[in-house]
Structure formats: structure tokens, C-alpha cells
């Protein structure tokens, strides 16, 4: 898409600056990885490994809970209290405590999926494949639609959604369809795209700087300076990516809580 470029798959080992070789800009093809066997691809393996790691960690932390928590249990409790007090009770309220396990699972599942992007050896954010965020978003959509119908009644749920109180009457002609579309379609779509695009863009950015550090490494002043700068940028961007990954997991959980809260109590 961006002008003439060498596809990622065709980079020569000696492709450097001023050796008659154009910059091999990475594109979306870096996300298409050959499956190991059958349908088992790298993201699937990382996802399963991540799930096992989370389970192992929290089994170790909470398997034999003690009144005076040990090191591991303290860390686990910090995570739990962060979700319960920081997200669930702030957004849903006291009756949101029954959703804490769901929010807790979503947060750590999304986070470990993102975190694979900067873990050496893995270096592939699972959520940069669109199917994974879409699956999560569909699950969240089903939950908040079900809760809305269950707690407000099927007709009341949709009328509450479409007619938020306190507007002049004629406004509802425009507002009602917009609210319906925004609640039923735009919410899950943006939920999936936000997570996917952040991970996609972050991974692409890291790849651009890594490839640039390799490409610019050549025996002249521009090459040396450029290569060093790109390498330093790779390190800085990795740190930045770590922040974004945690933030996106937090935002995904927060929005899930907000949608659940909106289904439990109609806006007043």
C-alpha cells in the first residue's frame, strides 16, 4: 500500500542502507504466520499458554488462602482488589460484586494476551488477530443484552435505551435511532476494534523500528546514527507498549463494567 516496497518475506540478509536495497517497510503480512500444524497457529498456542499461566498463578496465590497472606497471595489480592474496588464498585456499585469474577477474568485474559507482544521469544500480541477481540466483544455483548432484558424487561430495556429522559420531544426523532444503533451495534464493534487496532498498531510500530535498526546498520555516519536511534526507539517503544497493553486491558474491563451497569439500572 505504501508505494513500492519489498515484501517482508523477501528481505535479503544483506539488505542494508546504500546497498541498492529499498527500505523493506513491514506491512500487514507480518501478522500472517504459518500454522504449526492443522489450525494451530502461534496466537492460539500463546493464548492457551497464557491461560495456563494465569490459572497456575492464581491457583498458587489463592489455592491455600491464609489469614496472613504470603508474598504471592498479597500480589493476587492486590489484583483482585484493583478490579473489585477500582472498577466494579466504582462503576456498578455494591450489587456488582457478583460480576467481579467475570471482570477479573477478562482483565487478566486480555492483559496476558497483549503482554505476549513484548515478551522475548513470543513477541506476538494475541489480540492483534481480529478474531480474538471479536470473540471477547461478542461475549460482552451477549452478557449486557441478556442482563438488560432480564433486569428491565424486554420492552422497557429498549425504550429506556432509545428514549433517555430530559430531552425536548422533537429531538427523539433523531436521538432514538442513534441511541439504538450506538448501543446495539457501535458498542461491541468499537470494543473489538479498539483492542485490536491498538495491538496491531503497536506491534507494527515496534517492527518498523526493529527493521529500521537492521536496515540502517551500514558503515557510514547516517547509517550508524540512524541505526542507533532506531534501536533506542525500539527500547523506548517497548516500554510505551507495556503501558498501552495494561491500559487497553483496563479500558476493556472498564467498558464492560459500564455496559453491565447500564443494563442493570436504566439511566435516570
Amino acid at each position: 500500500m505504501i508505494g513500492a516496497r519489498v515484501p517482508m518475506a523477501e528481505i535479503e540478509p544483506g539488505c542494508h542502507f546504500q546497498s541498492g536495497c529499498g527500505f523493506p517497510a513491514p506491512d500487514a503480512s507480518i501478522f500472517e504466520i504459518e500454522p504449526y500444524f492443522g489450525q494451530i497457529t502461534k496466537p492460539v498456542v500463546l493464548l492457551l499458554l497464557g491461560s495456563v499461566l494465569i490459572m497456575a498463578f492464581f491457583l498458587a496465590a489463592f489455592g491455600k488462602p491464609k489469614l496472613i497472606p504470603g508474598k504471592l497471595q498479597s500480589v493476587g489480592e492486590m489484583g483482585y482488589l484493583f478490579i473489585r474496588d477500582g472498577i466494579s464498585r466504582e462503576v456498578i456499585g455494591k450489587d456488582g460484586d457478583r460480576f467481579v469474577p467475570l471482570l477479573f477474568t477478562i482483565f487478566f485474559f486480555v492483559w496476558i494476551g497483549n503482554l505476549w507482544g513484548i515478551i522475548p521469544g513470543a513477541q506476538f500480541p494475541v489480540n492483534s488477530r481480529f478474531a480474538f477481540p471479536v470473540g471477547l466483544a461478542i461475549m460482552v455483548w451477549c452478557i449486557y443484552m441478556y442482563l438488560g432484558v432480564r433486569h428491565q424487561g424486554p420492552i422497557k430495556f429498549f425504550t429506556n435505551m432509545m428514549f433517555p429522559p430530559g430531552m425536548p420531544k422533537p429531538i427523539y426523532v433523531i436521538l432514538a435511532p442513534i441511541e439504538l444503533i450506538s448501543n446495539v451495534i457501535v458498542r461491541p464493534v468499537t470494543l473489538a476494534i479498539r483492542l485490536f487496532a491498538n495491538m496491531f498498531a503497536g506491534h507494527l510500530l515496534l517492527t518498523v523500528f526493529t527493521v529500521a535498526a537492521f536496515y540502517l546498520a551500514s558503515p557510514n555516519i547516517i547509517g550508524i546514527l540512524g541505526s542507533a536511534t532506531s534501536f533506542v526507539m525500539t527500547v523506548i517503544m517497548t516500554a510505551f507498549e507495556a503501558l498501552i497493553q495494561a491500559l487497553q486491558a483496563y479500558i476493556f474491563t472498564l467498558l464492560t463494567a459500564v455496559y453491565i451497569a447500564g443494563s442493570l439500572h436504566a439511566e435516570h
Partner: protein
Amino acid sequence: MLDLLAEVSISGSLGSIGYGLAAIGPGIGIGIIFGNGVQAIARQPEAYGVIRQNMLLGFALAEALALLGFVAPFVFGA
């Protein structure tokens, strides 16, 4: 004028131009959100938790627009 415009051929990626345009609005929006958020925290440090949460919520909603612009060239461009 139109003939002149038609003769200028633009080569390169329209997607990157589209992303640049898509980033203007959310850029301004995110600036306003965090600017006002920091101001609110400075005025009322004890409400830090609530302000930060709403700040991040607003940030996520505004940012989604820029990300749509980022994804669109990959989806429709190929």
C-alpha cells in the same frame, strides 16, 4: 483549474492521508480530555480515582475514532 488538478497525479498511499485526517479530531479531543482531567485533579486531588477513571473512559471513546481511521486502509485498501 479542474484540468490542472486532474493532471497532478498523486502517487503513494491514500490510506496514510486518510489516517492523518482521521487523527485530527481525536487528537484535539484527547488533548481536551487530559487537559481538563489534569486540571480537575489539581483542583481536587482527593477525587483522583473518579477523575482518572472518567478521563480514561473519555480517552478510550475518542481514541476509537482515530483507530477506525488506522484500520480502514488495511481493511479496504488491499
